[in-house]
């Protein structure tokens, strides 16, 4: 059980200097996430969950503590190495989709492959495959602004999937969507987790969404206040 730890955080702290004052966003977080887990991180705004996401996603470095991803300590790596890790191992899904405007779904999906030297023909094939995985067959050549919110979020998921990452991080992925579309997106996450065995971390404050997770982590004031593991993997 301990050997298939995908993520191991040891006493992670992150402080920001805002003018004269020090803001302690994270004050010592330790947790472990296994390969194939579906984890929900919950907490009120300002609790530090976004900072935690940024550190897990290798967009930010902790002030102190150790972060081990797939057996590699990444907390001390330099920026360009972190960029490589984001490219190969991590897929991001954001609340506001963060797609390139005036660009087709296909080109958006190809974007990570552009930075990993995949030949353009092969990149096209992989992107098409990822788009069909999220159910966007036939919409590949539409510009992102011609797509609905749900479709845009599917493009973002396809982009996260395209490089076969070990981990997908989703920050409030349904926050900009209506309930029905949101449920479809959550269902997609669940299916990808089950079929592809991709580890997922969802940041949310919607308890219904958190209920599909194998594990719920509650954060408040930069500390973990509660961890709950579901007895068995629930079905939606």
């Amino acid at each position, binding site marked *: 059980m301990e050997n298939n730890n995908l993520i191991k955080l040891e006493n992670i702290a992150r402080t920001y200097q805002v003018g004269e004052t020090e803001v302690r966003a994270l004050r010592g977080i330790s947790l472990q996430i296994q390969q194939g887990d579906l984890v929900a991180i919950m907490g009120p705004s300002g609790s530090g969950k976004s900072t935690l996401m940024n550190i897990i996603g290798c*967009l930010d470095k902790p002030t102190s503590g150790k972060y081990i991803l797939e057996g590699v300590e990444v907390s001390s790596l330099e920026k360009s190495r972190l960029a490589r890790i984001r490219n190969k191992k991590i897929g991001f899904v954001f609340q506001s989709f963060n797609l390139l405007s005036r660009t087709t779904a296909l080109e958006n999906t190809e*974007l990570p492959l552009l930075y*990993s030297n995949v030949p353009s023909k092969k990149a096209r094939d992989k992107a098409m495959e990822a788009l069909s995985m999220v159910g966007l067959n036939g919409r590949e050549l539409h510009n992102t602004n011609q797509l609905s919110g749900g479709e845009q979020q599917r493009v973002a998921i396809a982009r996260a999937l395209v490089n076969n990452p070990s981990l997908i991080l989703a920050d409030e992925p349904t926050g900009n969507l209506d309930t029905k579309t949101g449920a479809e997106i959550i269902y997609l996450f669940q299916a990808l987790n089950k079929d592809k065995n991709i580890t997922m971390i969802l940041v949310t404050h919607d308890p219904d969404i958190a209920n599909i997770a194998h594990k719920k982590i509650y954060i408040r004031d930069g500390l973990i206040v509660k961890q709950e593991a579901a007895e068995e993997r629930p079905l939606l």
Partner: protein
Amino acid sequence: MKILNTIRVALRALSRNKMRSFLTALGIIIGVGAVISMISIGQGAKKAVEDRFNSMGTNLLFVRPGSMSVRGRHGGSGTFNTLNPEDAKAILEKCDAVKYVSPSVSGRVQTVYQNKNWNTSIQGVGAYYPEIRNWPVEEGVFFDENLVKMAAKVCVLGSEVKDNLFEGEYPIGQVIRIKKIPFRVIGVLESKGESGGWFNRDDVIVIPYTTAQKRILGITHVQSIDVSAVSAVKTLNAKEQIEELLRIRHRIAPEAEDDFNIRNMSEIAEGAAESSRILTYLLGGIASVSLLVGGIGIMNIMLVSVTERIREIGIRMSVGAREKDILRQFLTEAIVLSVLGGLIGIAVGIFASKLISHFAGWQTIVTLGSVALAFLFSGSVGVFFGFYPARKASKLDPIEALRYE
């Protein structure tokens, strides 16, 4: 990222904002176009000067009187009346590096043929003038040494004078009046063509120098002596020999200055070529300023573009773009803009120099060198002015960039 991919991405990004990209490139287009057309004007002027001097013959020497100094006050060159036809004769006889000589006097006169009249310059020269100046007659004959000795009232017309006085009539054998004295036309010189702007070398009447001295100008000295050396390499020898001879003939003390100047054609040609080279640098320099302004335009637009695309940069970073990927992308955009602008500018410059030579009648020459220079310059403008914005983009923090509205 492969280089081709980078260029493709840059082209995509630029085509998303076609109007702005075009206006940015316009600065470079105008700059490169200006550099190429201005240099072509300078080169054309240089070529025209060179052609003109080459057509006069390269083994040509001019002997002119020196400056006269009266009680320490120098007059201009040519103020001495020290050269005379006997000097010319002596030069021909005593200097073995000299092939032909032609004493020369000149003035301006009014000429009349029937009811037409024309004001032109008159050249009194020797019989070997056509050989020395590399300027043969087209119709009729040139006067020989006998006619010169006799101070005969014969003349040879430049083509411009022939056109103005005769208007298509056959001139040989006709009589024209120069300062009311009748002269028989015995020949017409080949046309040299206009090449010195306002100065037309075909607007001249050539008569024996003896005739010019006695009947037109009333002088006994000559204003200059044209000398042709036996070959181009002997011009320096000829110069030394003439110098030595004239010092003896004019009884100049060993420490005193010459009372004459000897110039050879290649010296004069070099001087003229030098001034047209300066013209080229000057025109090119002024035009480069517009290229510089174009470069600043690129920097400005790239800075705006970086600010506008902060979120895009954040997205690219989140999916794995490294600092150097972002740097390369924005730098490539700037270079693609300036290189495309440079290519269009080359076409515009070539077209503009054709237009200039068509409408202004100036000779223009677009050289491969000036095209290469302008192109290289525009490329480096892209690198230089693109670097700062690109670096700014690459140093963004991905988290801040993603949050940017």
